[in-house]
């Protein structure tokens, strides 16, 4: 059976602010799921709720149909938004300590700490204090702390923030690897291009409630039809102006990006282009995740 996290009807109010407003979504293990939303949308609050770090006004969170309890949460891995490590504690000791809190034996915790530090190229830093590391390396140690106990679900709040390309590649590789081995991975990020490359599916929330969710492919191909058309000799795409139900979103070097209304027909657009000159490019265009996000949250 595939593990599954079910979030149902979460609500949490802070004074007049509705941080979570009837939020529901599902997450199946084996997938990397991007958890997206504008600042203040409720992502961090949701993640903290999964770990019981705040009380909910309403709603349930279940794992394979069972309400989450402390024992189950210890089988999850968590990386909070504001990194959480003891600054002056030695890195190796710190990982061992966190592993022990996740019910690992002392020997297993030591072995896994060593393994993950080697994996992240930090084996020689085990005897250093966390505060002596660069931001990127602290991030790697934080991720190692979340991975150490081979979690069933990984919840990572902005794991890619502030990383250089090499750091992003390392962490992305690990997340995909964990998902392939059957772990559920939920992570938030504002780096939508990275999310698009990394995730099979996304959950987008705004103002504390779900806006849209699905696979990246489905979201990219759903919605209004988009075309890229290039007509020889017409660098400003004047041929497309005045077409009913067609909006020119962008023209670059003769390449026109068109958005078609639901009742507009691509055949009509093709004929109009052919009548204006030789058509050198005519393609259906997928929505970028950033476009999906903007359309969903505006």
């Amino acid at each position, binding site marked *: 059976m595939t593990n599954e996290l079910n979030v149902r009807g979460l609500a949490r109010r802070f004074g007049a*602010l509705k*941080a979570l407003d009837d939020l529901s979504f599902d997450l199946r293990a084996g997938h990397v799921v991007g958890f997206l939303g504008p600042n203040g949308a409720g992502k961090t609050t949701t993640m903290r709720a999964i770990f019981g770090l705040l009380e909910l006004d309403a709603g349930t969170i279940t794992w394979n149909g069972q309400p989450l309890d402390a024992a189950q949460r210890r089988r999850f891995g968590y990386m909070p938004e504001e990194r959480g*490590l*003891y*600054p002056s504690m030695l890195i*190796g*000791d710190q990982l061992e300590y*966190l592993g022990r*809190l996740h019910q690992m034996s002392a020997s297993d915790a030591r072995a896994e700490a060593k393994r993950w*530090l080697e994996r992240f190229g930090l084996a020689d830093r085990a005897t250093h204090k966390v505060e002596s590391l660069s931001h990127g390396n602290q991030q790697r140690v934080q991720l190692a702390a979340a991975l150490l106990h081979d979690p069933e679900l990984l919840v990572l709040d902005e794991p890619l923030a502030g990383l250089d390309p090499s750091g992003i590649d390392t962490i992305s590789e690990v997340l995909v690897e964990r998902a392939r081995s059957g772990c559920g991975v939920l992570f938030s990020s504002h780096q939508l291009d990275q999310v698009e490359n990394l995730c099979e599916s996304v959950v987008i929330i705004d103002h504390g409630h779900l806006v849209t969710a699905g696979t990246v492919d489905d979201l990219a191909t759903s919605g209004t039809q988009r075309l890229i058309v290039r007509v020889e000799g017409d660098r400003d795409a004047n041929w497309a102006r005045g077409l009913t139900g067609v909006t020119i979103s962008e023209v670059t070097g003769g390449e026109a990006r068109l958005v078609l209304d639901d009742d507009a027909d691509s055949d009509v657009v093709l004929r109009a282009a052919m009548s204006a000159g030789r058509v050198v490019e005519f393609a259906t265009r997928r929505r970028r995740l950033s476009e999906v996000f903007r359309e969903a949250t505006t």
Partner: protein
Amino acid sequence: MRYVLYAVLVVVALVAARRRRARASSTPVEARRAAYEMPFVRGRVGIVAAREVRERLRGRMFRVGTVLILAVVAAAIVIPNLHHRHAAALRVGVVGELPANLRAQITRDARLSGDATIFTTEPNVARASAQITNGRVDLVIVRDERVVVGNIATSPHAAEIAQIAQVLGVARALASAHLSASQISILEHAGGLTITSLRHAHVKPTDVGTSVIGLILIFMILQQYNTWTLIGVMEEKSSRVIEVLLATLRPIQLLTGKVLGIGIIAFAQATLVVGFAFVLAKSVGSSMLRGAAPVELVSILIWLLLGYAFYSWVYAAAGSMTERQDQIQAVALPLSVPLIVSYIASLTAVESGHASLFIRILAYVPPTAPLAMPALVGLRAVTWWAFALSILVSLLATLGVARFAAGVYHRAILRTGGRVPLREALALRRTRAT
């Protein structure tokens, strides 16, 4: 004294060997086995406590602090003893004959005051007076005529000199009274009347120094370790490691582990200091172990433990309401007021030798009892059942305080963005967004 030196050398050698081993190891992950285990506390509370113990022991502040405390205690024991020894030898110059029975009696009387006696023979009064002026003798007995001193009003041996003068005067009077040998013997061996003490005659009072050192120790350790607890909680909150920790264990487990771990270190340090003081005082023959001092040392350890147990929860709860160093002073100061008040009151009582009604009341109030009750013990002004009653009251209060503090900690520890208002920490108002 040499045994103390041997003990210190052994400890230094063990510490040096341990440091060499630690340096030789490649990584702490491989080198140290069973680092997060507590022998008597299992589960996550034990793991948290073990981390506290280990990190605190590793800290330079603890090691330097312990050495400093030991040095202060050693100085407090050894210096008065040296001074006492120096002042104690009663140096008696003798011009002419001094019968052996009178020498023996003077020696006996001086010993009762804790002093040794050194007799020197002086050729004449002029030379003897010069010896007094040079400070080589404390007094000179001139045949059976008179006793010469520098200044009886300022002499540290004034009482003993007066006693000697009395003994010599009586001896001369007896000699001139034409009594028989047996009559003289009866008079010479006549004892004083029996003295009946209204308080427990079998217990001598404790040396004031023992009580003072004990009170200072309790005050210092409670202040130091409670502040550690406060700062430790604040640092977990400010570094956000608290979120990672509370994803794996309940707040009460984390809080209990921290209080327990720091408490173990505090009690171990206090036991080390008290044990060191005991051995050192015994070695140098200090008067600080006189009378009921051992009972008082045990009382000091008991109240140190109870005091820490009471205050640690309060300081931990206060720490959960702060997340910056500059906020610590504002919350720590009000909490330390009962400690400071009871410290001053206890020291005053011990110095005066009188257990006032005020100090007797403080001895049964949980926040002030950790200092006031040991003061009463030092003054021998408390019965065993009153001592036990105060312990019971303190334990019950600690249970209540721990429960209350755990609630405050639970509500405040995940609240970020400034100091948590007291009303919200006490759950008088719904928490706002974090």
